[in-house]
C-alpha cells in the first residue's frame, strides 16, 4: 500500500519538495542580504528601519500569492485521490484486491495527510526564519501582519492539510476530477478569504483593553476613531481589534456624538477629553502569537478530520 501511494502520488511529492528547496534557497539568500544591509546601521536607528522596511516590501507584496499554495495542495493532492479513481473506474480494481477498501483509504489519507502536514510545517519554518529578520518592524512583528501570520508557524501546515481533506471530500462526492477541482477552489477561497473578511482571528482570545492617554502626534494622518498615534501607542506586534471613544459612564460613543469637537481640528483631542470622553483600544498582544497559531491550527485540523470522516463514510458506505 505504501508503495502504491508513493507510485501514484510521487509527482506531487517531488514538486512540493522542489518548491520548498527553491523557496527556502531564495528566502535564505534574501534574508542574508537583508542582514548584511541592516548591519551597516546601529540597532533602532531610522536608517536600519528604512533598510528593513524596503527589504520586507520586496517580498511582502508577494505574500498574497501564498494563498494559492494550500489551494494547489487541495487541487493536486486532494481531488485526484478519489475523483481520478472514480472517473477512470480504477477504484473497482483497487478495492477488489486483498487489501481492504478501509486499508487502502486509511493508508492514503494518513500517509498523504502526514506528508502534506510535514511539508506545510517546513514551509512555515522557512517563512518564520525569514520573517524573523524583520521582527524589529512594527508592520511585521508578532501578530501585526495577518498575511504573515498565515504563512508562518504551524498555520500553513493546518491550511495545507485542510485543503487536502477538502479536495479529497470533493472528489468523493462529485466522483469526477474537474467538478471536484471547481468545488475545491470555490470552497477553499470562500473559507480562506472569509477568515480575513470576517476578522474571526481577532477573537481567538479576549483582547487586552487600554483606555485614554492617547498621545497626540501632530502631522500624522488620522481619523476620528483612530486618533493620531493610536496604532503607535500599541505595543510592537500587537493586533488592533477595536478602537474608539467612551463617555464618562464607559459607554461607547454612538455615531455622530464625537462631532461635538470635530470642528476643533487642532484641539480635537483636548476638546474630547475636556468633555469627559476617553479613547480606548482593544488589541491582541504579540506574545499571543503561538496561542493564535495553535488556535488556528486546531480549528483547521478539526475541520480536516471532519472532512476526512465524510470522505471515509462516502467511500466505505456503498
Amino acid at each position, binding site marked *: *500500500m505504501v*508503495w*502504491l501511494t508513493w*507510485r*501514484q502520488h510521487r509527482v506531487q511529492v517531488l514538486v512540493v519538495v522542489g518548491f520548498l528547496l527553491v523557496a527556502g534557497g531564495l528566502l535564505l539568500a534574501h534574508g542574508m542580504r537583508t542582514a548584511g544591509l541592516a548591519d551597516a546601521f546601529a540597532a533602532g536607528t531610522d536608517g536600519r528601519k528604512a533598510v528593513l522596511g524596503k527589504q520586507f516590501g520586496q517580498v511582502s507584496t508577494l505574500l498574497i500569492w501564498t494563498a494559492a499554495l494550500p489551494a494547489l495542495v487541495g487541487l493536486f493532492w486532494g481531488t485526484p485521490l478519489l475523483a481520478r479513481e472514480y472517473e*477512470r*473506474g*480504477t477504484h*473497482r*480494481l*483497487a*478495492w*477488489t*484486491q*486483498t*487489501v*481492504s*477498501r478501509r486499508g487502502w483509504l486509511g493508508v492514503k489519507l494518513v500517509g498523504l495527510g502526514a506528508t502534506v502536514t510535514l511539508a506545510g510545517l517546513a514551509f512555515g519554518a522557512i517563512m518564520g526564519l525569514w520573517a524573523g529578520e524583520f521582527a524589529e518592524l512594527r508592520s511585521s512583528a508578532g501578530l501585526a501582519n495577518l498575511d504573515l501570520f498565515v504563512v508562518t508557524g504551524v498555520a500553513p501546515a493546518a491550511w495545507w492539510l485542510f485543503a487536502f481533506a477538502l479536495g479529497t471530500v470533493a472528489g468523493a462526492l462529485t466522483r469526477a476530477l474537474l467538478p471536484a477541482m471547481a468545488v475545491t477552489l470555490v470552497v477553499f477561497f470562500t473559507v480562506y478569504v472569509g477568515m480575513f473578511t470576517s476578522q474571526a482571528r481577532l477573537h481567538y482570545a479576549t483582547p487586552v483593553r487600554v483606555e485614554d492617554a492617547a498621545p497626540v502626534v501632530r502631522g500624522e494622518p488620522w481619523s476620528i476613531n483612530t486618533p493620531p498615534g493610536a496604532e503607535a501607542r500599541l505595543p510592537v506586534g500587537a493586533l488592533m481589534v477595536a478602537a474608539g471613544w467612551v463617555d464618562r459612564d464607559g459607554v461607547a460613543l454612538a455615531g455622530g456624538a464625537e462631532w461635538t469637537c470635530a470642528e476643533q481640528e487642532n484641539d480635537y483631542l483636548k476638546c474630547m477629553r475636556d468633555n469627559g470622553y476617553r479613547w480606548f483600544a482593544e488589541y491582541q498582544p504579540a506574545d499571543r502569537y503561538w496561542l493564535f497559531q495553535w488556535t488556528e491550527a486546531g480549528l483547521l485540523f478539526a475541520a480536516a478530520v471532519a472532512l476526512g470522516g465524510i470522505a471515509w463514510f462516502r467511500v466505505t*458506505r*456503498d
Partner: protein
Amino acid sequence: MTSLLTATGLGKRYRRTWALKDCSLSIPAGRVVALVGPNGAGKTTLLHLVVGLLTPTAGTVSAFGETGGTAATLARVAFLAQDKPLYDGFTVADMLRFGRHLNPRWDQELGERRLAELEIPLDRKVGKLSGGQQAQVALTVALAKQPDLLVLDEPLANLDPLARHEVMRGLMAAVAETGMTVVLSSHVVSDLENTCDWLVVLNRGRVQVSGDIEELLAEHRLLTGPAELADGVAARVSTVDDSRTDRQATLLARTGAAALSLDPKWTVRGVGLEELVLAYLRRPEAASLPRPVLARA
C-alpha cells in the same frame, strides 16, 4: 454438490429503483458460469455485490461461506471490472507490482510468464498498449492473484474478434490449469456457448434461469405444429415462449427429459443456447430455477 457462491433474497436499490431484486442463486464450485441478460438487467450490480463493491439493500450474498466483500473473501476472489480499468500511467511491470503489494497470495512468476508468452513488454506504459493487450494485462493481474473465484464483467466487450478469441483462450487455459470457478457476464450469448457450463439469465433485475447448460438444453424442446392444436399442447407442457401465426404455432417448452407423445402433426426438436436465452428474455414472467431443495443445516 458444494455451493461456492450463494445469494439469498439479494436486492439492491438505487434511490427508488431496484437494480436487482429478490435474487436467489446457488452456484457449484468449479463451474464456468455465464451470466447473461440485456443491458440494464442488473448483471453489473450482481457482480459488484459478489465482490463487495456494493453492499446489498436486501438479502445476502456469500462466497466460500463468507459474506461477499469481506477481507476473507477478497483474498480469494479476483474481479475484472467492465472496461478493464488499469492505471494508464503505470508500466506493465508497475501493474504487477501493484498486484504483488496488495495481495499476499500473489504469484509474480505466473504473471511474468503469462505476459512474456503474450509478448507484452514489461516496461511499456499501460496507456500505450492496444485494447487487446490491456485486456490481457488486466486478466493477468486477476489471475496472478491466484483466485478461487474469478469474476469478469463483460470481459469481451470492446475487443476485436481476434482479441476476443485470445482472451477467452487464455482464460480457459487458466481454468483448466487451476480448476477455479469463473463467473462472466455478457450480453452476447454466442461468446459463451463453447466455454461455459452453467447459465444464469438475469432480466429486469430478476433471476430467470439458473442451471447446468447441458441439463437446460436437454429439458427444453421447440415444438412446431398447427395453430388450432396449440392450446391443447400448451396446456400439457410448461411453455416458455409461444409464437403463433394463423396456421402455425411454435412453442419453446420446458418438457423435462422424458419423451413427449404428441400428435404426429407436431415436430419436436432440441434447442440451442441462444434460442433458449432469447425465449426466456422475451418472456420475463417465465422462469426456470432449480426446484426447491432442503437446505443443508
